[in-house]
C-alpha cells in the first residue's frame, strides 16, 4: 500500500460505485452546459408548449363542432312537393349543419364547383319526385299492412318506382368516421319524414280522418332520451374537454422528445475528446450518465409543470378549455417523474448506440413518433387494429398515457393507476439493461 500512497496525490476516489462529490460536480457541469445552450432550451420548452396549444386548439374545434363550428351543408332541393322542404327543415333542426339551400332553378348544377365556391364540406341533392315517392310508398305500406296484418314484411315488393336516390357529396378531407356521422344524421332526418308519412297514411286509413298533430308528435318524437355520463372514479359528471384529452398526451410526447437534445449530448460527449479523457480518469463513466439522468429528468419535470400550468391558467384566457388538474397531485407527481425517468433513459440508450448526432436525432425522433402512435397518442388505442393492440404494451408512452388518463379523465387516484406505473418501470428497467449492454460492448464502463 505504501507505493500507492507515494504516488497518489489524493486517495479519495473509490475503486467502484458512485462518489457523490464527483456526481455533484458532473451535475453542475451538465447544468451549466444546458443553461448556456439557449437554442436547446428554446426547443426543449417553447416547442412542446406550442405543440400542446396547437394540437389542443385543433382538437377543441372538433369537440365544439356540434355547438359552434357547424358543418357547412349545401342542399339542392329538386323536389317540388312539401316533403323535400320538410326534409330540409328537419336537417336544419338537427343542429349539426350550417345550411345553404341552393337555387333550384338550375337543372344540372356543378355540385363540386358550388361546394368549392360556397366552402361547403357536404352537399345533399334531394331528387325530383321525392314527395311523390315518399307518399306513394307510405300509402302502399299502409294499404298492404291493413289488407294482411300477418304478412311478412320481407315479402313486400316495392310497387312504387324509385326516383333518383338522395345524393350526398362530401369533401375528401372528411375522415370516414366523421363522414359516417354526417350520413347517419341525414339518414335519421329522412327516416323521420318517411315515418311521418306512413303514420299519417295508416291513421287516415284506419280512422278515415287526418291524424291530430299532438298524436303525430307523440308517435314520432317521444323517443326515450339518452343521457351521456362520463365514467369517473371520483363520481364527477364533468364531461372531459379537449384539454383533458390532449394536454397529458402531448406533454408525454414532449417529454420523450428530450431524445433530440439528450441523445445528441451523449453522442457529442462520446465523439469528442472528453470521453477519452473521462475513460482515463479514476471514476466510472456511470457518473456522467447518472448526472444526465438527474439533470434531464428535472427538465422533463419542468416541461410537464410548465405545460400543466399553461393548460390550467393560460388556456381559458386564449379561448381554450381549461385543464382541470387531478385531485391526486401526488399521483400526478409520481406518474410525471416515472415518465420523465423513462424518457431520459430512452434518450440515453439511443445516445449510447448512435454513432453520430444525425443517427441519434433521426432514429430518436422517428422512434418516439412510432412509440406515440402505437401508444395511443395519435389514435385512441381502442380504435387500433388487434395486432397493434398487442404491440402497444411495449410502448412506454401507452402506460404513461393510461396513467395520466386515469388521473385526468377518470378522476382516479394513485391506487387506481399503480399497475401502469409498474409497467412503465419494468420497461424503463429493460431500457437500462439494453443501455448497460451497449456501454459494456463499447468499453465505456
Amino acid at each position, binding site marked *: 500500500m505504501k*507505493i500507492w500512497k*507515494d*504516488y*497518489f*496525490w*489524493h*486517495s*479519495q*476516489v*473509490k*475503486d*467502484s460505485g458512485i*462518489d457523490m*462529490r*464527483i456526481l*455533484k*460536480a*458532473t451535475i*453542475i*457541469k451538465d447544468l*451549466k*452546459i444546458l443553461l*448556456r*445552450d439557449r437554442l436547446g432550451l428554446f426547443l426543449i420548452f417553447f416547442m412542446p408548449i406550442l405543440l400542446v396549444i396547437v394540437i389542443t386548439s385543433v382538437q377543441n374545434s372538433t369537440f365544439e363542432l356540434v355547438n359552434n363550428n357547424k358543418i357547412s351543408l349545401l342542399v339542392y332541393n329538386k323536389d317540388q312537393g312539401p316533403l323535400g322542404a320538410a326534409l330540409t327543415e328537419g336537417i336544419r333542426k338537427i343542429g349539426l349543419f350550417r345550411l345553404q339551400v341552393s337555387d333550384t332553378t338550375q337543372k344540372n348544377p356543378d355540385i363540386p364547383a358550388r361546394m368549392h365556391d360556397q366552402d361547403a364540406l357536404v352537399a345533399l341533392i334531394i331528387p325530383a319526385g321525392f314527395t311523390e315517392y315518399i307518399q306513394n310508398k307510405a300509402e302502399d305500406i299502409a294499404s298492404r299492412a291493413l289488407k294482411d296484418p300477418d304478412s311478412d314484411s320481407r315479402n313486400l315488393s316495392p310497387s312504387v318506382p324509385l326516383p333518383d336516390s338522395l345524393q350526398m357529396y362530401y369533401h375528401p378531407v372528411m375522415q370516414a368516421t366523421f363522414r359516417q356521422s354526417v350520413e347517419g344524421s341525414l339518414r335519421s332526418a329522412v327516416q323521420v319524414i318517411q315515418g311521418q308519412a306512413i303514420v299519417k297514411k295508416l291513421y287516415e286509413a284506419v280512422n278515415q280522418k287526418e291524424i291530430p298533430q299532438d298524436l303525430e308528435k307523440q308517435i314520432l318524437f317521444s323517443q326515450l332520451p339518452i343521457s351521456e355520463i362520463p365514467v369517473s372514479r371520483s363520481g364527477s359528471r364533468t364531461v372531459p374537454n379537449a384539454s383533458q384529452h390532449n394536454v397529458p398526451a402531448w406533454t408525454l410526447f414532449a417529454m420523450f422528445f428530450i431524445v433530440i437534445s439528450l441523445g445528441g449530448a451523449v453522442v457529442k460527449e462520446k465523439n*469528442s*475528446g*472528453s470521453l*477519452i*479523457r*473521462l*475513460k*482515463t*480518469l*479514476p*471514476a*466510472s463513466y456511470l*457518473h456522467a450518465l447518472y448526472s444526465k439522468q438527474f439533470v434531464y429528468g428535472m427538465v422533463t419535470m419542468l416541461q410537464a409543470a410548465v405545460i400543466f400550468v399553461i393548460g390550467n391558467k393560460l388556456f381559458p384566457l386564449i379561448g381554450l378549455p381549461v385543464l382541470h388538474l387531478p385531485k391526486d397531485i401526488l399521483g400526478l407527481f409520481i406518474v410525471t417523474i416515472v415518465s420523465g425517468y423513462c424518457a431520459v433513459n430512452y434518450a440515453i440508450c439511443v445516445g449510447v448506440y448512435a454513432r453520430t448526432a444525425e443517427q441519434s436525432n433521426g432514429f430518436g425522433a422517428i422512434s418516439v413518433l412510432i412509440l406515440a402512435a402505437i401508444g395511443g397518442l395519435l389514435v385512441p388505442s381502442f380504435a387500433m387494429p388487434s395486432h397493434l393492440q398487442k404491440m402497444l404494451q411495449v410502448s412506454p408512452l401507452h402506460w404513461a398515457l393510461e396513467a395520466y388518463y386515469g388521473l385526468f379523465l377518470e378522476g382516479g387516484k394513485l391506487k387506481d393507476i399503480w399497475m401502469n406505473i409498474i409497467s412503465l418501470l419494468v420497461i424503463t428497467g429493460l431500457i437500462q439493461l439494453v443501455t448497460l449492454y451497449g456501454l459494456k460492448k463499447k*468499453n465505456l464502463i
Partner: protein
Amino acid sequence: MSIPAITIQKLAFHYPRSEGVCFENFNLEIQAGERFGLFGPNGAGKTTLIHLMTGLLKYREGSIRLLGHEISRHPKSINSLFGFVPQDFSYYPELSPRENLAFYGAWYGLDRKQIKTRTDELLEVLGLSDVGDRFLQSFSGGMKRRVNLAIGVMHRPKLLFLDEPTVGVDVQSRHNIIEYLKSQNKSGTTLVYTSHQMEEAAILCNKIALMDDGKIIAHDSPEALMQKHGYEDMEGLFLALTGKRFRD
C-alpha cells in the same frame, strides 16, 4: 532498487479485423523520472501504445505495469497514478478553463480546496490567469493546448502521458509547454511523450524510442542514437531509420 515507471512485457495486441497496427511480443521499460519520447511515422503505433498503457484499449496477452501495478488488474483506481493529455482537445468548450478544471479535478478525487489551489497555480504558470473565466470556444489553438495540458496534470500525477501535446501551436506556446513539462519532470513526474516534431526530441527527451510498424527499431538517449548512427540531427536519424516513403 527503484520501481520502473512502466514495464511492458510480451505484449500482443491487434485491432479487430486486422485493421491498423499490431503488436507481437512487444517489450519496453521506462524508468521513473525519465522524459521518454515515442517517435515514429504515421501508423507506427505510438498512439495505440499510449492507449494501451492508459487502459483505453484492452490487451489479451502480455503485461503492462505502471509503477509496479498490472493495469488489467486495477481497471479504474490505477488511473489516479497517471495523467493523460490526448491529441484531441478533451474538455468542454461550453465551459471556462476554471470550470473545466473544477470538473476534472473532482473526477480525479480532489476536494474543493485542492481544486481551487491547483487551478490558480496552473492558470498562472500556463499564462491563462486572465482568461480563466472565459469560455474556451473563443480561445486560440495555443491557449486550448495549454488548457488541455492543465487538465492532464491537475492531480499532480507521477506519470504523464502526452500524445502530441504541441501539435498546431505557435512557437511561443510550444516553448512554454516544453518548459512547463521540464519543470514537472524536475519535480518527479515521469513523462511519456509522442510527437512528429523531431527537434522536440532533442530539446525535451532524455530517452527516446523510434517505432515503426508496431516495433521499436531504436531505443536510447537522443545523443547516443545520433552518435551511434552518425547523424548530427534527429530528423536525419529519423529518416535514415524509418525511410523516406510516404506514411498515410
